[in-house]
């Protein structure tokens, strides 16, 4: 059936047969067969200039009159953020990294026209120095299992046609035609999928509870309020493949019996908001959202709720309050949202990554899915590898992959020849895991056992130059700021914990501080309402477990072993190394360094603010921190 919407002619898709015909037409069309230059343009890519690179590619294509031979595809984040802006030239899969707009011309004239490789733009392994031509050979990609992320590079997120042509919405039609809601839930239960938001609640069980709740109106919500510093997998999924999330929500809504859905996304993610808005509009135009979907009587629509970026609104009851227009504070559970949620109606909330997994499970079967991962944690999980690591980016691996594989095989290890110290997993409320536990297989239970949480899956790698007290102080300050302030235990407890940590890092620590810190940590954990407070002391507790010596060094010896805490370090000049070049003297913002040219310089400690600029400037290792 054809309808006119605005100036555009849009086809409504009513049956799986129609979908298949539509898809075949898209696949056969000339534009889908032209080779593509895929430029990874998530928020991360755009921040590093991918928009300009895309434009210069388009100019170069026009200049060489290649419009019918090759086209660009502005895709979402491919995951390898370290190399951005990067481009993959299909069908060969040639991978070029760290592009500037000037490189486009050379790539078009050399690789596209003559089939020659531009050597200087190839990816070089930072450890072995080996160069790689094809995307599939790069160790970063090779060791992953990219069930969700791989699609990001195959489509333009703003094009429903692209999503349809890779088989999108096929699963939804199959589900609608062949399965009852109970069978869908049974399938999800059998797959062993657990919530990717962090707590790991079995998704099938949640759906079942929500389905059983008796009410005529039910809601499904996609939680895209990703607030952990250093985590961005949900953003990349929603930005790069919004339709997969929408399809997941449609299947969930069908299974639960919901007719309305919300995507709760923070306003700090403008690209994710934009892409999901376009995706919802497109799905509506094709009759995939709205009344009487696929002529089955199933009714479902999605709205976007934009959050103001409070960390606590990722907690489900606070999220519901925020959508209702109230202040984002958690409330008592039970009753759980599956019984009484949004506006008192049964509400099923899942994380972006959980929703994106749903179409995959139903397309390929619960048996296939449950073979991936460990006994109790199934499927793959996307982690964001950030911090002191060579290959920064998103990596999707099966549950049960060890930290060592992730950090060394995929991440390439710690840069600048420094020693690996620990990883902070699960964002600010996760825990710090030391190098002794590198062979820990990552799944929900093992992380909890090690004093951390899965969280949304941020992995922040720390090297020997990171001070544990300083790091924990940062996290506790973040959480103190992001606490909603409702519970005394969380609001005052975190405030006091920060107070003690500041004392320790500034050399005023007392012997009993560690005991008080532990006592308050227990109370914050035990007595707080929601997940934020209950997990907030994790950084303190886990570092006290694994790095107690460092706390003691700060308190007893008034020393910061990593030489980070400013109150406990001093800068001085190594006389033997100083050449008297004056570089440090010129750059010192406090004018604390004096000395004649070619003479040994001197730092005035009374003036020095310990900013460390001199250390970074000196080429002769003549600045010493003690």
């Amino acid at each position: 059936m054809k309808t006119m919407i605005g100036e555009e002619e849009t086809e409504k898709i009513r049956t799986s047969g129609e979908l298949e015909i539509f898809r075949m037409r898209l696949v056969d069309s000339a534009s889908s067969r032209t080779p593509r230059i895929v430029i990874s343009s998530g928020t991360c890519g755009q921040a590093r200039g991918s928009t300009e690179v895309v434009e210069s590619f388009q100019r170069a294509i026009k200049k060489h009159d290649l419009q019918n031979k090759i086209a660009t595809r502005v895709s979402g984040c491919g995951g390898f953020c370290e190399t951005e802006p990067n481009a993959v030239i299909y069908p060969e899969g040639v991978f070029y990294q760290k592009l500037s707009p000037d490189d486009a011309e050379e790539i078009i004239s050399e690789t596209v026209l003559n089939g020659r490789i531009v050597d200087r733009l190839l990816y070089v392994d930072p450890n072995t120095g080996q160069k790689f031509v094809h995307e599939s050979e790069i160790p970063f990609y090779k060791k992953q299992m990219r069930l969700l992320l791989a699609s990001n590079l195959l489509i333009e997120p703003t094009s429903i046609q692209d999503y349809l042509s890779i088989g999108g919405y096929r699963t939804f039609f199959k589900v609608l035609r062949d399965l009852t809601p109970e069978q869908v839930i049974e399938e999800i239960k059998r797959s062993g999928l657990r919530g990717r938001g962090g707590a790991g609640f079995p998704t099938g069980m949640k759906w079942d509870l929500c389905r059983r709740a008796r009410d005529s109106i039910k809601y499904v919500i996609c939680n895209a309020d990703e607030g952990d510093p250093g985590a961005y997998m949900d953003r990349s999924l929603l930005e790069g493949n919004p339709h997969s999330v929408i399809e997941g929500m449609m299947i969930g809504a069908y299974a639960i019996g919901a007719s309305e859905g919300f995507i709760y996304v923070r306003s700090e993610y403008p690209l994710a908001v934009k892409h999901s808005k376009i995706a919802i509009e497109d799905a509506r135009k094709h009759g995939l959202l709205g009344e009487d979907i696929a002529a089955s009587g199933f009714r479902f629509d999605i709205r976007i709720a934009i959050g103001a970026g409070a960390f606590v609104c990722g907690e489900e009851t606070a999220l519901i309050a925020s959508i209702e227009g109230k202040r984002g504070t958690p409330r008592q559970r039970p009753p759980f949202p599956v019984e009484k949620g949004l506006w008192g109606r049964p509400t099923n909330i899942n994380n972006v990554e959980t929703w994106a997994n749903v179409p995959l499970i139903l397309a390929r079967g619960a048996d296939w899915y449950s073979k991936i991962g460990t006994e109790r944690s199934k499927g793959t999980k996307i982690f964001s590898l950030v911090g002191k690591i060579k290959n920064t980016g998103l990596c999707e691996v099966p549950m049960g992959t060890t930290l060592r594989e992730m950090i060394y095989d995929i991440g390439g290890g710690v840069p600048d020849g420094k020693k690996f110290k620990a990883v902070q997993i699960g964002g600010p409320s996760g825990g710090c895991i030391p190098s002794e536990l590198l062979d820990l297989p990552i799944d929900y239970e093992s992380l909890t056992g090690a004093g951390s949480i899965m969280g949304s899956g941020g992995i922040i790698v720390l090297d020997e130059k990171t001070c544990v007290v300083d790091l924990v102080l940062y996290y506790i300050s973040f959480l103190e700021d992001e606490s909603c302030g409702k519970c005394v235990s969380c609001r005052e407890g975190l405030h006091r914990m920060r107070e003690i940590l500041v004392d320790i890092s500034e050399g005023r620590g007392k012997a009993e501080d560690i005991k008080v810190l532990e006592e308050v940590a227990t109370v914050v954990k035990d007595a707080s309402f929601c997940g934020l407070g209950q997990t907030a002391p994790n950084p303190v507790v886990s570092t006290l477990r694994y790095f107690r010596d460092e706390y003691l060094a700060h308190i007893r010896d008034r020393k910061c072993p990593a030489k980070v805490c400013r109150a406990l370090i001093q800068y001085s000049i190594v006389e033997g190394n100083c050449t008297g070049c004056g570089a440090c003297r010129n750059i010192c913002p406090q004018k604390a360094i004096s000395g004649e040219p070619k003479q040994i310089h001197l730092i005035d400690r009374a003036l020095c603010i310990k900013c460390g600029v001199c250390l970074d400037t000196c080429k002769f290792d003549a600045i010493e921190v003690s």
Partner: protein
Amino acid sequence: MVKLRINGLDVEADSGQTLLEVARFMGIEIPALCFHEGLSPWGGCRLCLVEISEGNRDRLVTSCTYPVQEGLEVKTHSERVIRTRKVIVELLLSSCPSSKTIQDLAAKLGVQKVRFTIEHDDCIYCGLCVRMCSEQMNAKAIGFVNRGGKTKIATAFDRKSDDCRRCGACMYICPACQLRCQGPEPPQVVCGGCLSLEPTCLDFYPDLMCFMGTKGECGTCIREEPRKKV
């Protein structure tokens, strides 16, 4: 009716009742600062915590918000509960030392010292005033502003509110700032004199002589034979 066990006693309660209601009906004393019979439960002060058993996992929940559930095992005064309550009172005391209510609580729970820096915030953010204003007075003139450590209770945009009828209900219901010990602001905080002492100063002197932080100095906490009033 819902059957549950509180402190080892079998209890029957109406569904929809909270643990606090049932426990108080049984005569068990549970402290609570943000709870009031006439207002919706909030669960912010965390003093009414009780320990419940779910399978093999014990956890602490606020009894003022937790609905009774079939077969629930509740302990209102377990060691964990008392330990947690003490730290919470200590936290409250350190930011709100001039409140008589909190001083009394501290004395009752045996909080002997405060290990944190004293701040005179003088609001415990229990939200009773906010709920009073919106639920009983139907004015909604005040509310919570900001979050975390920057939370405060204020009118919208800190302007004089047109919705406020100056009824004073917010001040009437405040558990913390209205009942102030009238002593000078003390350098040391835990007083506890008014509650932990018998006989009180009034048995000795015509006026209340207890100044916070000067425990012992006014002489009343020294247990002597009651003397004749001066």
